[in-house]
């Protein structure tokens, strides 16, 4: 077993452990913190698989930006006590996951190409960027439009118009104190 293979299996164990811990936590803050570990491991795995630019992007965007955004949102929300003491959905969900996993494993190992050893190669960031803007420049532009549309939708959703809506639709559950006014400054 070469050094690269050992590093790969080590990273795999780290990713699986961190993800497994993250999806079973009841406190979302703990889940997000474990997930940051999983994303950092995934970034290292991308580096190992020859995608250094994507590794940097993953660490910056996933582990940096998105997880911090989720943390801020968790801090804005108050927990309802019902989420803590319920286990009833875990059975069917785990069964579903196991069935899916069994099918996926069977399909992967039935394929004769699955035993092919990967050869090491690195897509240098310069080559990758040139390739991307040579052939997929239109997709990049569409992606930027998508991000712009998401931004507009978020601003529109985040506008506060609860004063007139609370009269039209009286909420059946009274909103907790401090939940309405503190989030947006």
């Amino acid at each position, binding site marked *: 077993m070469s050094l*690269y*293979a050992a590093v790969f299996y080590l990273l*795999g164990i780290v990713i699986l452990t961190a*993800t497994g811990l993250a999806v079973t936590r009841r406190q979302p803050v703990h889940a997000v913190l474990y997930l940051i570990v999983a994303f950092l491991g995934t970034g290292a795995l991308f580096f190992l698989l020859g995608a250094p630019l994507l590794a940097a992007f993953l660490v910056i965007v996933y582990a940096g930006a*998105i997880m911090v955004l*989720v943390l801020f949102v968790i801090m804005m929300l108050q*927990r309802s006590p019902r989420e803590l003491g319920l286990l009833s959905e875990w059975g069917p969900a785990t069964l579903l996951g196991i069935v899916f996993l069994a099918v996926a494993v069977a399909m992967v190992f039935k394929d004769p190409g*699955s035993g092919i050893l990967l050869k090491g190669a690195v897509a240098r960031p310069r080559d*990758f960027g040139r390739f991307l803007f040579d052939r997929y420049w239109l997709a990049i532009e569409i992606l930027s439009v998508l991000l712009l549309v*998401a931004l507009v939708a978020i601003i529109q959703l985040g506008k506060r118009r609860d004063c007139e809506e609370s009269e039209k639709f009286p909420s059946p559950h009274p909103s907790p104190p401090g939940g309405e006014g503190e989030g947006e400054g």
Partner: protein
Amino acid sequence: MIVPLGHVFLLAGITFAMGLVCLVAHRNLVMTLIGVEVMMNAAAIAFVAASLRWQLMEGQAFVLFILAVSAAEISLGLMLVISLYRRTGSVDPDRYDILKW
């Protein structure tokens, strides 16, 4: 690098299944979004492995698109969660019963 392709796909598959379980089992909308993120991460691992297997850079280009789409999706989803929370005072989807007469 002497890792078989199937092992990388196996890692991606297990991660994807964990994200699926997280998506279905939790009753907190933030945890549901986290499950979607885990599933997208697993898809990205599979794409990078396939890119290395066939020595083509298209797989890595797709991972870049996955990153951007996932950023848009999580930000919009979190904004929807906040909007629902303002309206009902809860992030539990079982309590969204405004339409019930």
